[in-house]
């Protein structure tokens, strides 16, 4: 790879543009999709690699190529700059997510509490969420416990293609939330998408443990893992229900 090509690739990555590198395996010649003009079959392979977010190799007219997609990072939008968010943010960043924390309460959403690696948004959640426009590579989790803040964020998230929408709160809290969202005009199909109580049932107690259960659920959803929330709920049955050790 030539330094100039690496610079072009990094510039696209920095700008958040999805690009793919095509390498001819016989001699290492490289092209950048979609910036370089390519034969139709190669351009199609690059589009496919980006859509599946998976590298692939192919042989075109007897020549072997390797196609490496570089999608912008997955995004996690956290509503509520609360204690659990402080544990969740570095964990998500470590897993490769670009993290945004939304909280209009200035005392909470401070760089001192979250470091410089995260984007802090102080707008009201509905406005903030519309600006952030969750896409199919975005996860959203609400943590404020306050319907005034959580609900407007959920209303936007549930009407977006976000691949995961989770909301902190007990079953009882969630039942009330569902009633409010129905009243606000969301359909049952839309509200059924909410992961609540949020996270895999690993018996999490502390803020970092809850953050771990949320991240595990997000990863499972993203990867289409069979471990679902129902199965998690079984694993997390109350202690007394489990057989004696």
């Amino acid at each position, binding site marked *: *790879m*030539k*330094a*100039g090509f*690496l*610079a072009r*690739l*990094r510039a696209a*990555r920095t700008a958040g543009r999805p690009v793919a590198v095509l*390498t001819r*395996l016989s*001699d*290492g010649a490289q092209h950048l999709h979609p910036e370089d003009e390519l034969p139709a079959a190669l351009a199609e392979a690059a589009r496919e690699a980006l859509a599946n977010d*998976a*590298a*692939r*190799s192919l042989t075109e007219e007897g020549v072997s190529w*390797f196609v*490496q*997609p*570089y*999608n912008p*990072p997955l995004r996690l939008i956290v509503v509520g700059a609360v204690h659990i968010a402080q544990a969740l943010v570095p964990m998500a*960043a470590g897993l*490769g*997510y*670009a993290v945004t924390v939304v909280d209009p309460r200035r005392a909470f959403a401070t760089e001192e509490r979250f470091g410089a690696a995260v984007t802090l948004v102080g707008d009201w959640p509905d406005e903030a969420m519309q600006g952030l426009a969750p896409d199919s590579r975005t996860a959203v989790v609400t943590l404020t416990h306050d319907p005034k803040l959580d609900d407007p964020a959920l209303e936007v998230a549930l009407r977006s293609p976000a691949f995961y929408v989770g909301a902190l709160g007990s079953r009882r809290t969630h039942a009330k939330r569902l009633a409010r969202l129905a009243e606000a005009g969301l359909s049952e199909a839309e509200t059924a998408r909410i992961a609540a109580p949020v996270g895999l049932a690993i018996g999490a107690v502390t803020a970092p443990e809850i953050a771990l259960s949320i991240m595990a659920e997000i990863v499972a959803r993203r990867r289409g893992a069979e471990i679902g929330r129902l199965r998690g709920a079984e694993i997390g049955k109350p202690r007394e229900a489990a057989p004696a050790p």
Partner: protein
Amino acid sequence: MSDQEDILSTAADWLAAGETVALATVVETWGSSPRPAGSQLAVTASGRLAGSVSGGCIEGAVAEAARRSMADGQPQLLDFGISDERAWEVGLACGGKLKVFVEKLDAAA
């Protein structure tokens, strides 16, 4: 994935600092390979490593091969985990097979 970005950034930083750098990329896998296609390892002539192309089984051999690409500028396509008379005796304990493309980062141009 930021994983990729970190390795590219690291490789670019090393290059900018005057190191000789090679990049190894998993291009194809069969069976239970530990890292998917697209996984990358950056190596310098001075012995620095970033990223991975396996669970640690073949990084040493890849780094060794990378030295050759760094010396002559020629890319290489390496096969691992194939139990025939290939020069690459380093196998994958997990029984997987994979191909790794090794290229020098060319500071010129």
